[in-house]
């Protein structure tokens, strides 16, 4: 037995008087067609809803920031991800990058050793005063890759004589074209500052204003920058870690 096709059922909903008697008779005695008719009537009944309300843009930013932060395996085809700072939830960053107290101490120790080693090798920093008064490590961060949890070195903030120095000792950075620039990203996810280049490729130290870390600029980020004169972040981050 043939069923009534959807077009005829639709006409039965829209203009019952114009529907041929045969169609109506069939539908009245056919449970399958009756069900489809009911479904169409349901659509007609539900077709009175108000327009949808889009969420504010900040929700989109938060979703993408959270997804990128919590799932470093995901990314674009080449394994790198565009930098997403706007609206990044500070808690999410912290939870992944939080350095336990003991590890922070350890990281700071390593950073100091690395700093001293550099001083001796290059001779550009007098080793003796550094050794006698190394300053106080106020915060440190383990740096990791963004697309995996691979270690990418350490950063530490050292306070000495009312100046704050950020020491970065990176490792395993991608050797691609461009220079490595160091940034501090605010945990509010909205602000960032460039603090200098890793001229040697992997290590460097940078004097920064004392209040900067207190203001929330705690996320150390190393980017690779093409030689294009554009002062903004290239969007390609090689390593990141939060000072704790």
């Amino acid at each position, binding site marked *: 037995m043939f069923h009534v096709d959807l077009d005829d059922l*639709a*006409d039965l*909903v829209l203009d019952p008087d114009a529907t041929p008697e045969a169609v109506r008779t069939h539908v009245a005695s056919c449970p399958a067609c009756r069900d489809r008719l009911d479904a169409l009537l349901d659509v007609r009944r539900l077709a009175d809803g108000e327009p949808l309300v889009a969420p504010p843009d900040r*929700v989109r930013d938060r979703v993408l920031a959270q*997804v990128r932060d919590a799932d470093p395996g995901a990314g674009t085809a080449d394994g790198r991800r565009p930098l997403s700072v706007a609206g990044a939830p500070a808690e999410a960053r912290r939870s992944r990058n939080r350095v336990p107290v003991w590890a922070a101490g350890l990281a700071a120790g390593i950073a100091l050793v690395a700093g001293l080693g550099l001083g001796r090798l290059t001779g550009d920093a007098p080793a003796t005063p550094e050794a006698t008064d190394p300053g106080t490590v106020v915060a440190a961060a383990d740096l990791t890759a963004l697309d995996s949890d691979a270690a990418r070195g350490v950063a530490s903030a050292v306070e000495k004589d009312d100046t704050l120095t950020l020491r970065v000792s990176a490792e395993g950075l991608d050797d691609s074209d461009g220079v490595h620039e160091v940034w501090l990203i605010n945990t509010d996810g909205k602000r960032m500052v460039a603090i200098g280049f890793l001229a040697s490729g992997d290590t460097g130290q940078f004097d920064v204003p004392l209040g900067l870390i207190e203001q929330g600029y705690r996320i150390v980020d190393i980017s690779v920058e093409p030689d294009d004169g554009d002062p903004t972040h290239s969007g390609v981050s090689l390593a990141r870690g939060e000072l704790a």
Partner: protein
Amino acid sequence: MVTGVREFEEQDDVVRSLAARLVAGDESALEVIYDRWSALVHTYALRALGDAHDAEDVTQQVFVAAWRSRHTLTPSASALPAWLIGIARHKIADVREARARDARRSEAVAALPVLDAVDQSADGEVAERLVVRQAVDELPDPRRTIVLLAFWQGLSHTEIAETVGLPLGTVKSHVRRGLIQLHQQLEGVRHVPR
């Protein structure tokens, strides 16, 4: 007539491939999915919870959860929106549960469980109404305008023909195809296991 069906099938392919890209871990697919269905999820949460802040939170949670549990999605056209609505339903329930806990803690609202039951039974209909609304808004014009005039404004086919300046037969055909397309979208969301 046939064009309506073809448009619909092309739409299906777009959604199916979006779902497949999401399952494969393509972040840009999540962005497209967000752009297309965040208003649906957000409006659903807004209606169900009546609070702008909670609705934003739920919207955020739904799409983050969708990403994290993307492996559980079957890449089919209708499964994707139904799946998002299913996740939203759970997140909305979580918020309600938390509210009920708070209310119990403050010993304020004795009648809350009853209210809640009423709310939740109406939820299905709220979601379906939103799906239909989204479906009409995604129709290409002039079909969208014609269907809105017919169903939302309650105009007769003759009145619509005068308003949009199209022959009566064309208007009727658009209304009929429009109804069927809305029906197909709604069925897709209804007949997916939750």
